[in-house]
């Protein structure tokens, strides 16, 4: 993936010093969220790292694509790490965790099965927080040019002369 400004690469050593696992998918440390393999990391300035990690998990659970890595979900929600969004997001994630606890889980990311997390989300899908996050993902996730090839979508074609000589009618199975 092309490195976004705040999705930075870290060495495994840097990452593991002073970090803790959050659920199975993330490690969090002071001012960052990362994958356990250190393949990507996201700096956070305003949100608690645990909050950002939970938001990334929530994003994946809303629009789960198993062939799309967490870094794309992280890029889709990183804009919520701002002074303006901070209070809303912290409150929204706190409510999400409270709902998870209410259903017998340690936290939202502590619910091991996607179906359990989706069940928690269904319980709050009419809330403004959920709708804001879901609505933002429609462009935040699917309008990332780096995501398009993972779905086969080829993007702009004018600079390549269109498809007139590049397979506009190339299917042979029909």
């Amino acid at each position, binding site marked *: 993936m092309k490195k976004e400004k705040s999705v930075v690469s870290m060495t495994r050593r840097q990452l593991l010093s002073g970090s803790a696992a959050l659920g199975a998918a993330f490690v969090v440390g002071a001012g960052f969220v990362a994958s356990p393999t250190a393949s990507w990391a996201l700096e956070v300035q305003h949100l608690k790292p645990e909050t950002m990690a939970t938001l990334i998990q929530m994003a994946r659970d*809303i629009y789960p694509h198993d062939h799309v890595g967490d870094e794309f979900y992280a890029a889709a929600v990183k804009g919520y790490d701002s002074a303006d969004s901070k209070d809303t997001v912290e409150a929204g994630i706190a409510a999400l965790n409270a709902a998870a606890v209410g259903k017998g889980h340690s936290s939202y990311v502590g619910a091991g099965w996607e179906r359990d997390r989706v069940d928690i989300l269904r319980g709050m899908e009419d809330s403004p927080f959920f709708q804001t996050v879901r609505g933002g993902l429609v462009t935040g996730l*699917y309008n990332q040019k780096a995501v398009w090839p993972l779905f*086969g979508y080829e993007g702009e074609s004018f600079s390549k002369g*269109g*498809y007139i000589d590049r397979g*506009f009618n*190339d*299917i042979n*199975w*029909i």
Partner: protein
Amino acid sequence: MAAPFDKNDDSVVVVIGTGAGGGVLSNELAQKGVSVVALEAGGRHTPQDFINDEWDSFGQLAWLDPRTTSGDWRVAKDFSGLPAWIVKSVGGTTQHWAGASLRFQDHEWKAATTYGNVQGASLLDWPIDAAEMDPWYTKAEDKLHVTRTGNRPGLPGNNNYKVFEAGAKSLGYKDVHTGRMAISSSDNTDRTMCQQTGFCFQGCKWGAKWSAGYHDIEEGEATGNLEVRPESHVARILHNDEGKVTGVEYFDKDGNLQMQKARVVCVAGNSFESPRLLLNSASSMFPDGLANSSGQVGRNYMRHMTGSVYAVFDKPVKMWRGTTMAGIITDESRHDPSRGFVGGYEMETLALGLPFMAAFLDPGAWGREFTTALDMYENMAGMWLVGEDMPQETNRVTLNNDVKDKYGLPVVNVHFDDHPNDIAMRNHAYQQGQAVYDAVGATRTFPTPPYPSTHNLGTNRMSENPRDGVVNKWGRTHDIPNLYVSDGSVFTTGAAENPTLTIVALAIRQADHLASEMAAGNL
């Protein structure tokens, strides 16, 4: 006198809007030697400016000024602030349109007579018919270089079309082909041939698709008789004590109020902005708005019965490659009440890129039912369903005095409820669309809800009797002799076909009428 024209020159015709109606009318008048000032709310965007990117292009071209919605149509829920997907640019929505150029069927000019009494519908026959329109349609087809008319070849079918055609034939449909399109299909003209680039909705960067923005407007300007003023938002039409219009007030690109005098004013701002302007021009002489003695301004808003069907196959289709609207099945466009509804519908291939597919496949949906569909994006084929919807007096564009635009003018509220006939037709169309794809092995199909309206019709409808509508058979308002309407808002009924060709044909015909009336000293 040649363009540019003085603001106090009261010999000019002012045309408001430069799309399929206003852009064509401006050029046609200019070709006849009539002085025209065309005021366009949007900016100027040429093919080089267009962007092969769905959201970036949307930001560049779409009309995003505030509007509000009400009614039971799903667009009011999914896209409450965006009832229409239309363009704010010189050339209007002809920058964005797919290019489908179909004539009305003969019976569709006589909807009230043909369909009889339909409960809740305000059907009316047009005051013109197929025979009268035939020569104007021919001129429009020649102007737009419509394929499969006038010896112009059809376009080649792309992958999306090949799937669609095979399904149609397997299902027994007879009339399936690559459409009548305003897209150049040969190298033997001055327009570049379609390069199958696949971003028709984002403006054709080759100029292979006809657009008023870079065809008619440029031709009109070349005569010296047409002055186009972009970024000019008309606020009010002015009139004198005799009840004739005398000019318009508009905000220029710097937000300053200007006044342009006029001999004739032609309103062509699409079916929301045209009635809005008439209503916002209310005066002590016309307290309900201009040309509204019938109370019909803003009523009978039509948006076509629409919907889409997407389907997933076990092998790749890559539907985004090539012409966006690459083919048509017309078998269901007939009037056949045995199907449970009056009127008919067309089935036309349509492709969306991944970003728009995510936004429009099932707005609001989330979770694996939704994402497993997008996972198969490369294997998707798609079609759009477009049919005649029933005019209803209560489907209506009104001023929303609680919401103002940046000039402080009330915006429109668009109220729409589906008529039972619309719902019956949509359900039939979904079923048939899904059957087309099932016939060639679809593993999953999606009856996709309507997008924000691209076909906005009615709201200043044409009528024989002044009591029933806003304009007469020439588009002249019943109330004010030198005030005309020149866009899709004059549609008496919507027919099943994409409306642009008819808007263009009516504009060419109206230009002929205006020039004769002016020559005869009647205007």
